[in-house]
Each structure stands twice: as structure tokens, then as C-alpha cells.
């Protein structure tokens, strides 16, 4: 009995009113272990009936805490009375329970028969009320029976199926009977409400009483269908109409049915609880009848019951013949979203029984339906004074896992536990998801998302769109051959200082799951430890830390990318294409997953971007690495007074005590995060045929643009890498709309984004055309042509002026000659590179500053 009413634990010496081998209930002794508590419920039910017969005793609305402090006869009796009830509920205040002295055992036994009969309830002429409540036993009995028999799921209404003719729960009962396995009947509280709001109200207000009747009705029903079915079926109510916030549980909720959401933070070990003990006589080997355990107490038979033996004190417990039930206590804590600012999460203990044991693990988010209970704090057994403090816990009826943990952590673990929850749909998230879906249907969702990303930073709308694509990501693809294509989009921001690049990065870091923010200055890509270094000259301290491994499946934001050491940067090659990181340590090479999108930002080498130089020249990054970025944005400070004014206005408004910034419709951060996570998790868009066609067409067009007629030189405007980027971008764009299909407009927008980025970064400033070679090799086609010309000129010069095996000529002299000859500007380093080309041709030899023809 104590099983259910965990708090009950009475003094061990009390003899148990529940151990009533003479009980007329067939289920009492034959029920399987896990039904023990239910059997108690039935017996308890029996004792409910005397209440009306002794109404005068009720002067007290609230029974005192367990009566162990009153050893008087009356006290003991009252306790017994209550204990009889407490299989499920220990005595608690504000419960409608009587504390009258009723001689129970016999009376209860008598009453059991007519009531378990089911029909008997109806036959009784006088209405029987559970004391202190408005519950009429017969009415409730009939209402439950009606509900079970006749409730039909409105969703089934359309179907015409002879089997469906029965009510939803009758079918469930039949299923349980057929399978012989199910021990519980899950009852959706919404169904109860739809069928009979009054019954629902009673059930929530007086769950102990109503559930006891529910069990009896259920058993009765089962007994009629299948008289031989012996297992006990428990009623598990779930899905209450309203759920309480953990922190709002208050004394008025005690003994009510509540539904709370929270996260399991601790589970006790499973506590085996002895239900039935079997003894064996050491003398003759006779096995006793199973003895029911009453609240942790077993009465050991003193005498061997075998007629021939009758040995005294010979009985010993046989463990493997005893029956045990499981019990567990878990701690439930509020989830972060329910905690008000400046508060700490509240916790509550939840008592789990039988099948519910181990239904949840620490870290799980669950919704628990149960009965809120309070019990008085234990005082030493000798204490007479009663403690005025109560402990509270929830007696769990039903546990349902909501989400694994955070919404956005992609977790492939199976969240379905057939025992705990048969409804796969996730109510907790359902309305949230609905809201997100509604959002996704907005026609301007793309713009709205763009606005919501770092709303404090304006302009840069196209950069933001690119960043959005990065957050949503494309579909990673793994071919059967083993080749895989990444779905992550890498972005590089290059720009002048003070253009809020870092702020964008910070924002992205906040938004992305498992985002890592690191400064390139001293980030080792792989290191799992970190190191503090000190600049010997300035004394500046720098933290070096490994970042990429940690941001697997996230966005790795690298600030000051240009300051990253070459060694670390070379690691990025592997990360950005293969998405792994190899670590060699102690002779072992480990390859770790680093499926991360890289968002890097770099400052130009000369502190300001020099528009006359290419991206490569502006930031000292190797072209090989640069080409791995899908989008490269140049964020230039254009010295535009309008922008400056806007910035100034923004700063001032931040400092204004009552900022009246014009409110634009934006999604708040949590919604945005939820939106992105949902899309990443659930939307896997595929290219439609038209979109694929458009992609091909656009790509070909891009390639064509390079060798436009009239232009002699061949400029590469797009490469195969770009088409991969385009696919990823268009997938991300489709995801933003929660669309499973990549449409033409996504492709068009992807082209636009790519072009905007390329126009900024891959434009050859000498000619004004887009040239992918700039990114791929660091040299634009026009530049290459210029160099070719120079080499040719130099060769001519060398041929003309110098003799084979003649004296060597100083480079400066050559330069002057060249300058005289050619119209174009020639620098020494240009000449040097030209000469080195000639050296490889074997035409000249260079010794320091002098050149010799060979």
C-alpha cells in the first residue's frame, strides 16, 4: 500500500488493515505484483462507503498528518481508517477525507461485494456520496461506464468499419485483453471532457476518488468480457485540458490532478518493493501462503502452518518466490523557458510506480500528469508535537516525453517510448510548430527573417541574406559511392574596420546551435586545449583555443580570420571541404567530425580596403582557402554621410532613456532560433525539375559571360564549386519557406546572392568584370595577360641586349630599359617575377641583383 502513497510510511508496529486475506475480492490475492496498488484502490473503495453513514464525525475538513503521534485507540483507528485509503493517498490536509473512527475491516468487507459488482451501484436506492465531495458514487460509476462504453473518437467518425462500431476505449480494452500484456489503459482527458465535462471536473478535483471508481468500473468491464482475465488494468489519465507551471503549484492544488512540464534532473535507483512475501519452513520445507506486505512490513508467521510440522519460529523468507514491484522517485525541474528573469528553477519530486519506472532519464523533457500530494515532515518517533511543515510531491499517473532536450540539437534518438506514450504527436511542440508554420506562410517571410537578423545593424541586407542561408544550410548529400557533399555554407566577410562585422558574427554565434565564437588570432583549429600566450613586445595577452571540433554541426564564427596562423588555417582546408579534422597525437591519427559552417571575417592587411587591389591582395589569404567560401562579401565603409547619420542616430537612441526607435516587424530571438531549428530538422527540400533546369541554364550563362564576343581573353566567371554553392543556397532558401521543394525562384535568388557576393569580391578592378580566377588563383585574367606581356617584353629585351654567356646585367638597368620601351608601368617585383619565369625557361640565371643570359 505504501507503494502508491510514498509519503505514508507509518510506524512499523501498526498492524495492517489491508492485509485481509479474507477479502472477497478475487483480484486481491491473485493480481500480479504491479496491480497491488490497484487492488488497494479497490479495497479503499470499499471503505469509502461507510462515510455517509457516519457523517457526524466529520467536523474536520482537514485530517492531521499521519496519526502516528496519537497512540490512543481512537487515533489508531482513525489512522487505520485513513491508511485504508492511502494506497493511493496518504493523509493530507485539505483533502476531503474523514478521520472518523469506523470499525472497518468487517464493514468494508461487506460493502465490497455489492459495489464491485458494478451493477450493484445502480441498484442502490440511496445515493452514496464520498464524504466532503459532491461525488455520488453511483453517478460517477455510471458516468465512467458510459464514457468507456460509448465514447467514440470524432476522428473515427468518417470510417465505416464494423470493428469501429465499438467505442474508442472499448477497442482499447479489447486490445489489452487480446495482447494479454497491457496493464494500463491510457485515457485522454480531452476525450473525457468532450464526453462528459462534469466527469472531467470531478476527476480533476477529486482524482483519488474518481480514479478509484474508474479502476473498479474498468475491472468490472473486463471481468464481464473475459472473466478469466486476471491482470489488473490501470487507468492512466493524460493530456489534461490545462497544465500548471511548476512554480505556480500552490496549496490549493494539493490532492488535485495536475499536469506539469519539466525536465528530469535526477532519478533514484529503482527501489524494489516487496509486495508479497513467501516463507518456507526450515524444518519441513513447507511453503507458506503468500503474505501481503503492508507498508513495508511483513508479518512473519510464527508457526509452520503444515499440520504435521507446527514448528515455531522456523519460517524463513524465500526471496525468489516473493513478488516485488518497482518504485522510483524522480526530480523534475522547470525548463529554462518557464523561469522568470532573475529566478532559479523550481523542482518537485515525482513518485513513479511499476511501468512508469525508468520511463524517463535525466535530461528528458516530460509532461507529467499526476496527483499533487503533501505529507508532513517526519518527526522523530518519540516526538509528540506535530510538525507544521509539509513536503510535496507528485504521484505520477502518466508520463509523456516531450522533446529530447533543446529544440535545435539534432538528435536522432528515438523519443518514443511505447510504454509511456503511445501518441507520437508532440503536443508540447504542436502549437509552437503551428505558429512557426504560420509564419512560414507569410509572403514576406524572407524579408522578415532578413530584418530579424541583427536588427541593430542596417544596410548589409544582402550580407544578412547570405548569413540566413548559412543558418538554414543546404542538404548534405552522401552518395552510395562514399563521396559526400557538404550542406554547410561557408561565408567570408572582408571589410573595413568599424563596419560591425564583429557584431554580425556575435549575433550569428547567438543564433546558431552550438555556435563557437573565436578570434582567429591564436585559434588552433584542432586543439582541444587552450593556451595563453603573451606578446613579448606589447605584453598583450592572447588566448589560443581549438574551436572547430567543438562546433560540429554548428556555425564556427572566426573573427580576425586573417590573423590566424598558417598552420591553423591549413586545417581549415580539410574542415571546409571534407568536414573532418585530423589530429595526430601520440602516434594516433584521429579524424574527428567537424561538420561546421565557417563564418569568418577578416580585416584588410592595410587596415583599410584598397579598392585597387584584389581581395587576395587585400587580405593575405591563400586562394585555395578563399575558394572554399561559398560567399565572400566585401563590407566597405563607403564614407556615406547618410549611413553615418543613421548610425549616429541609432547610437543616440540606444542611450536615450526611452528609446523610440521605429519598430519594424521582426521576429524575436527565441522565435528565430526555433524557426531555424525546426527548418533544419524537419525540412529537407529537393530540387524540382524546373529549378534544376534553371540552375543549369543560369550556370551556363554565367560561364558564357566570361568569353563574351569582342573580348579576347577568356575569363572564368563560374566554376563547378559555384554550382555546388548555388544548390546549397537554393536549398537553404527553400527551407526558409518550409518548402520541401526547391523552386525556380529559390534558384533565381541564389544566383542573385552569389552574384552580389561575386561582384563585390571577384570583380577585377582593372576591367570591371567578374572573374572567378581572382578567387581561384588570386590572379585575374587581365592581370595574367599583363604579366604575360611583361614576360614577353623582358624576353625580347634579354635577347636583344644581352649576349649568350656575356657579362651580367643589373636588374635596375633592365627595369629602366623596360620602362623606356613599354608604355605600361613596370615595378621591380613585376620584373622579378618575369625574370623568374624566364629562369624556369632556362633563358637567364639570376645571381642576387644581377641577371646573366645563358
Amino acid at each position, binding site marked *: 500500500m505504501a507503494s502508491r502513497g510514498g509519503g505514508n510510511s507509518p510506524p512499523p508496529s501498526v498492524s495492517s488493515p489491508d492485509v485481509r486475506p479474507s477479502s472477497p475480492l478475487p483480484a486481491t490475492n491473485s493480481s500480479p505484483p504491479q496491480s497491488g496498488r490497484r487492488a488497494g484502490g479497490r479495497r479503499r473503495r470499499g471503505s469509502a462507503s461507510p462515510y455517509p453513514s457516519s457523517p457526524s464525525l466529520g467536523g474536520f475538513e482537514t485530517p492531521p498528518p499521519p496519526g502516528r503521534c496519537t497512540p490512543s485507540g481512537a487515533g489508531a483507528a482513525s489512522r487505520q481508517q485513513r491508511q485504508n485509503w492511502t494506497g493511493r493517498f496518504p493523509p493530507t490536509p485539505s483533502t476531503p477525507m474523514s478521520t472518523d473512527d469506523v470499525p472497518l475491516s468487517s464493514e468494508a468487507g461487506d460493502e465490497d461485494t455489492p459495489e464491485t459488482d458494478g451493477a450493484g451501484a445502480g441498484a442502490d436506492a440511496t445515493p452514496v456520496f464520498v464524504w466532503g465531495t459532491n461525488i455520488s458514487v453511483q453517478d460517477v460509476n455510471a458516468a465512467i461506464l458510459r464514457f468507456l462504453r460509448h465514447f467514440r473518437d470524432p476522428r473515427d467518425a468518417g470510417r465505416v468499419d464494423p470493428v469501429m462500431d465499438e467505442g474508442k476505449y472499448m477497442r482499447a480494452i479489447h486490445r489489452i485483453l487480446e495482447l494479454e500484456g497491457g496493464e494500463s489503459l491510457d485515457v485522454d482527458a480531452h476525450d473525457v471532457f468532450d464526453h462528459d465535462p462534469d466527469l472531467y471536473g470531478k476527476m480533476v478535483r477529486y482524482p483519488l476518488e474518481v480514479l478509484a471508481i474508474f479502476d473498479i468500473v474498468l475491472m468490472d468491464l473486463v471481468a464481464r468480457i473475459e472473466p478469466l482475465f486476471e491482470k489488473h488494468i490501470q487507468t492512466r489519465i493524460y493530456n489534461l485540458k490545462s497544465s500548471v507551471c511548476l512554480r505556480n*503549484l500552490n*496549496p490549493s492544488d494539493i490532492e488535485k490532478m495536475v499536469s506539469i512540464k519539466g525536465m528530469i534532473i535526477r532519478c533514484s535507483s529503482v527501489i524494489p518493493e516487496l509486495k508479497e512475501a513467501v516463507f518456507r519452513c526450515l524444518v519441513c520445507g513447507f511453503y507458506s501462503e503468500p503474505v501481503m506486505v503492508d507498508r513495508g512490513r511483513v508479518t512473519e508467521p510464527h508457526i509452520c502452518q503444515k499440520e504435521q510440522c507446527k514448528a515455531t519460529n522456523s519460517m524463513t523468507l524465500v526471496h525468489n518466490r516473493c513478488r516485488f514491484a518497482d518504485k522510483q*522517485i524522480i526530480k523534475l525541474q522547470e525548463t529554462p523557458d518557464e523561469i522568470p528573469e532573475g529566478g*532559479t528553477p523550481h523542482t518537485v519530486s515525482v513518485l513513479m510506480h511499476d511501468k512508469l519506472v525508468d520511463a524517463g532519464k535525466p535530461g528528458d523533457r516530460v509532461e507529467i500528469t499526476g496527483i499533487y500530494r*503533501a505529507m508532513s515532515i517526519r518527526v522523530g518517533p518519540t516526538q509528540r*508535537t506535530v510538525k507544521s511543515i509539509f513536503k510535496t510531491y507528485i504521484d505520477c499517473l502518466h508520463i509523456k516525453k516531450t522533446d529530447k532536450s533543446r529544440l535545435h540539437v539534432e538528435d536522432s534518438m528515438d523519443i518514443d517510448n511505447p510504454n509511456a506514450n503511445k501518441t507520437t504527436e508532440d503536443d508540447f511542440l504542436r502549437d509552437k510548430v503551428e505558429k512557426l508554420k504560420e509564419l512560414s506562410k507569410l509572403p514576406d517571410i524572407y524579408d522578415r527573417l532578413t530584418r530579424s537578423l541583427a536588427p541593430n545593424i542596417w544596410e548589409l541586407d544582402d550580407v544578412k541574406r547570405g548569413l540566413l542561408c548559412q543558418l538554414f544550410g543546404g542538404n548534405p548529400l552522401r552518395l552510395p559511392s562514399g563521396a559526400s557533399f557538404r550542406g554547410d555554407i561557408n561565408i567570408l566577410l572582408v571589410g573595413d574596420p568599424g563596419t560591425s562585422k564583429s557584431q554580425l558574427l556575435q549575433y550569428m554565434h547567438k543564433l546558431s546551435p552550438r555556435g563557437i565564437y573565436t578570434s582567429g588570432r591564436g585559434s588552433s583549429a584542432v586543439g582541444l586545449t587552450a593556451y595563453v600566450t603573451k606578446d613579448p613586445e606589447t605584453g598583450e*595577452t592572447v588566448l589560443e583555443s581549438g574551436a572547430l571540433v567543438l562546433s560540429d554541426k554548428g556555425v564556427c564564427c572566426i573573427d580576425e580570420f586573417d590573423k590566424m596562423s598558417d598552420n591553423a588555417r591549413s586545417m581549415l582546408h580539410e574542415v571546409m571541404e571534407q568536414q573532418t579534422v585530423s589530429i595526430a597525437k601520440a602516434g594516433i591519427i584521429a579524424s574527428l567530425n567537424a561538420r561546421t559552417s565557417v563564418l569568418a571575417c577578416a580585416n584588410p592587411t592595410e587596415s583599410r580596403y584598397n579598392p585597387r587591389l584584389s581581395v587576395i591582395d587585400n587580405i593575405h589569404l591563400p586562394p585555395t582557402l578563399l575558394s572554399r567560401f561559398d560567399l565572400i562579401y566585401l563590407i566597405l565603409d563607403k564614407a556615406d554621410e547618410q549611413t553615418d547619420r543613421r548610425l549616429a542616430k541609432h547610437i*543616440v537612441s540606444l542611450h536615450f532613456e526611452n528609446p523610440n526607435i521605429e519598430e519594424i516587424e521582426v521576429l524575436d530571438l527565441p522565435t528565430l532560433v526555433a524557426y531555424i531549428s525546426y527548418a533544419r530538422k524537419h525540412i529537407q527540400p529537393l530540387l524540382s525539375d524546373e529549378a534544376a533546369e534553371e540552375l543549369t541554364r543560369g550556370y551556363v550563362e554565367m560561364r558564357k559571360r566570361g568569353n563574351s564576343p569582342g573580348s579576347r581573353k577568356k575569363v572564368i566567371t563560374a566554376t563547378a564549386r559555384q554550382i555546388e554553392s548555388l544548390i546549397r543556397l537554393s536549398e537553404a532558401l527553400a527551407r526558409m519557406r518550409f518548402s520541401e521543394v526547391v523552386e525556380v525562384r529559390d534558384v533565381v535568388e541564389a544566383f542573385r546572392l552569389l552574384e552580389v557576393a561575386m561582384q563585390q569580391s571577384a570583380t577585377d578592378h582593372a576591367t570591371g568584370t567578374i572573374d572567378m580566377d581572382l578567387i581561384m588563383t588570386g590572379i585575374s585574367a587581365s592581370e595574367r595577360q599583363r604579366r604575360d606581356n611583361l614576360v614577353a617584353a623582358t624576353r625580347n629585351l634579354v635577347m636583344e641586349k644581352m649576349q649568350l654567356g656575356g657579362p651580367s646585367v643589373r636588374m635596375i638597368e633592365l627595369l629602366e630599359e623596360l620602362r623606356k620601351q613599354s608604355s605600361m608601368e613596370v615595378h621591380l617585383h613585376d620584373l622579378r617575377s618575369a625574370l623568374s619565369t624566364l629562369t624556369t625557361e632556362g633563358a637567364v640565371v639570376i645571381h642576387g641583383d644581377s641577371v646573366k643570359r645563358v
Partner: protein
Amino acid sequence: MVGPQYDLVGNPLGAVRATFERAAVAAAAESGGHEPVAAFRGKDWGAGEVFRSFLFEQGGLDKVPVLDESNLGLIKPNTLVRFRGMVQDMLGNEFYVGAFKDGSTWRTNKFSDSSPFSMPHPCDSHLWERHLFHCVPVPGQNSWTRESSPGPDVRRMSSCLTPEQREKRKRGADNDAMDVSENGNGEASSSKKPKDDDVQISNSSLEMSMNEEHVPEINGGDHHIPGSSFSCLVKVYDMAESQVKLNDVAEFIGVYTFDPELAAPSDNSDDIMFDLIEDVTAQLPPSKVPRLHCLVWRNLSAHDFLSRPPSVEPSPILLKGIRQSLLSHLTLVLGKDELAAQCLLLHLLSRLRNKVDVVTVGRLSLNFIGFNRESVSIFGNQLNNLIQRLLPYSQAIPLSIEYLNTATLQPRKDNHSGRLVTGVLQLPQGTHLTFDETLLQSGSLTSKGVENTMLLKNLMESQTVEYDFEFYKLEMATDVQLLTLSEGKSNILPSDLIVPFRPSSVPAVNANSEELESWRWYLATVKSLSQSTETETYQIIQDEMVSAMQDDRSLGCSELSRWLTMAQIMAASFGENSLNMNHWQMVKELERLRKERLQ
């Protein structure tokens, strides 16, 4: 209710119960005997009023002893005490039998752990709730706040202590065994006769048991909160929990109770399953952690720590004078480096004023560069001493590799014990932290070290500290002033304002206490000044910003924002309510001088 019939300090519960019974009778008459006290749940029936008027209107506050470590064993249970501390952990709600019917009278257990009247059994009763807060002395609280807090000095204690006890208190904290026994005697010979005999009896018995086991344990010093030797479990009634926030500093005035029964360990063996239901308070034995049933509480601000609450209006002229004296003192402490002193003043006056997304407005963390170990030992110590004497809470943290790798900065929830284990960064609003980075050498950080640096960086950049709740992290907003002393610019602790420190003399100054007091008042007052600047000024500043950006393209959002912050603090430092262009120009001049030094 004119004139307390009860000795509110010596027997507060008597007053509570008397008012309750009176209110219950009145309510019963009104409601016709039906559930007369049900309406009192979560409400005050007049007891709080009595105490409030006694404490604040009749000057009773001074008569109430302050509960602290030194007098824990000396204060009688069930008397009125005061406790000043920081809410370190919120332990949730506790349900208790708030009211019960004893025969025909309704009695209450409010503001106590157990009733002096044995509860009849069974009886009519009501279950009420109260909130539990675990409070500790404020981390980093500077000694002047304690000296100057209007504590109960010896004379004022006379109302609740016997002459012998008074004697003890004069002798200070060396409460040896003799003290204790005398104390017990004192109680017995007490001339005060509480109204209620029951209370009297339970008091003395409790006193005895407390004398036997309580005091030695305190001396034994088994502490639950690292870095703090003393804590208090405050039970607060009749308020929404959201009114009190974690890390709030508050003064709780209420009934100190001591109930050894609660401490009695349950030795019942069939009890295993209750381990998890066990509530947290079980780990806070009353012998070590006193219980305080709060009748009245209030949040404390820096002003409340000033010894003499200012009677004068903070007029600009007055503030300007104090500003000048403080500034010259700071200059002397900083080796006649006036620029550094100006910046330090602005830094000391900064506070978090607004938070928009990731942007924090109003903070001004300061990094003095150009320190080495020697200069830190001279100037750093002077500076720390001064800050300690100026601000209510401050801490100096020596930032070394070892410290980063070993220190527990992050507060962490221990789900096993259900308590929040505090970390160095669990700080009340308005704390000042000084980091000495000159100690930092090259070396590897462990994962803990990395976590700690990330925490510090987050604190610097967004004024939040992540608390670790095992399954998730919770960001708590803070408002901490951060000063870093380092050799070069610190990249681990990125400050808003970097000032090269150029002292030209050795600090050799001492401020007298009067000056100190005026400076404290100045800092507290200026920080709390509200600002309202005309739109025109902002318009001019916008233009200024635009032209500044035209001149120097490297100026970014953060610099300009910092300028404005500095200008606003500058205005406030003169006691002005609104910013004018003078202040803006002063800040620009400061910036110019600072930039010169940086080159």
C-alpha cells in the same frame, strides 16, 4: 493599533499571534463562522503593519540586533533580528499548516517553524505557503559597510539582552565557553517576561540546547558555502517570488527561530525512498544556518550602507565640490596621472543602464595598461584599497593561469543536493571587480580554464554570467564594474576603455574618514541620478558623431557609443541631470589625450 502591547523585539510571535487571533475573531463574526481564516492565506492580517510602523515610524529599527556570525549563538530564538545579505539561492516554496483550530480558537503558525500550542489531532487546518531563500553575506562586501550600517550598538541591545549579555557583546566575538554558560544564566534571570508562558518555556529549553551544541559547531566552521562562513535561511511570506531576484541584496527583518527538532536526523531505516523527496533544507542544519521568518524586508542599495544618510539635496554645486576632491585624490593615488584619474572616475560611476539584444549600454570597463609586477604592487594595492573604501562591494582577482585553471567562477546547480553552488561570479548588482593581469604568464589552460575565460569575456562584453544547471545553462544579467590592470592590452578581458597608465610620482596619500564618507555618498548619489537630455542636444551630438566619422573612418559603433556613455557619466559626475555640449567636449578632449598616449 497604538503602542505595541507586546515587546515586538523580544517576543514578536506574541504580537503576531495576538493580532491573528483578534483578526480571526473579527473575521469569524463577519463571515458567520464559516471558514474565517481562509481569507488570510497569502495575506497580512495586520501583523506586518504593526511591525512596519514600529520599525520605520517609531524608530524601532535601531533596537533590532543584526544577526551575524559573531552573535549567532547569543541571540535568543524567537526574537526579532535583522539580516543583511544576498539571495544566493532560491529553494522554492514550503507548505506549512498556516492556521489551525485549537478548540474554538484559531491559531497560526505563521512566522514560526512550530507552534507552541500542540496542534489538536485531528483538527481543522489550513495549508499555506512561504518562500525559502538561502542568503549569505554579500560577497566582497567591504568592511566599512558593516561598520557604518546602522547596527545595534551595545546600548540599543538593552531591550533584548540582559546586562550579562551586554557585557559579552562588548568583549566582542571571543565567546568562549564561559560566555555561553553565562549567557544561559542571563536568560534565566531575564527580567523580560514574555506574555506567553509557552513561549517562555520553549525559549529557555531551546536556549539550553542551543548553548550545548550550537556554538561549538559554529566555531568548528563546517561551511556549506565556499568562501562564506555564514548563511541564513530566510522564509518570506505573502509575496510573489518574482519580487526577489537571485543576487539581490536585501535586509530581512523577522523572527529568528531555532528548532532542534528539525535538525533531528531521521534514523528510521524504512526511509530510503524519501531521500529524494528530502528537501534541501535538511542540508542546512539549523544549528549552522539560522532560520529567519521574515516579517519585513527591503532591497538595499548603495545608499543604505552610508553611515549618515544624506540630509541634503544633491545639488550640482555640492556634488561638484566633492567631485573635485575625489578627483584630486584619485590623481594622487594614481601617481599624478590626471587622465587616468578622470577615466577611473567615469569608470567608478558607470552602471548598466540599458540592454538591447546583445548591446549593453552604460557599462564602461576600464583597462589600465603599462603595469608591471612592481607598479601593480604599488599602485594596484593603493587603488584596491581606495576602491574597497569607496564602494560597498568589491573584489580583486589575481588573474593567473593557475587561478583560471582552478577557480570556480561559474555558479553551478548541484542537482544532487538541489542547491546552487556559488561561484566567484555570483555577484550582486553593482559589484566592482579588479583583475590583475600582470600575473598572467604564458601557459596552457585546461578545459576549466577555457570555460572560465569565456565566462569572464562574456561578463565583459555582455554583462551576463551563465549559470550551469547541468542540463542547460541559464544566463543571468549582472551589472559589474570591471577594471583590468595589465601590461599590454588585454585580449582575454576586452575592456571598453584602454588607458596607458603614466604615473609621475609615488602615491602617498591618505584620506580621512570624513572625506571618504562624502565620496561614498557622492558615488552612490551620482550613480542613482536619473538623466533626461533634451532632444536638441542629442541632435547636436548626432551631428558631432557624423563629422567625427568623416574625419576618422576607423571610428565604429562601439567607440561612438562609448563616447556617449562617457559624456553621460561626465554630466552626471557634475550632478547635472542633462547632458550638454561641454561634457561632450570634455570627453572628446579626454579621448584625444588618450589616443595620444596610445600611439
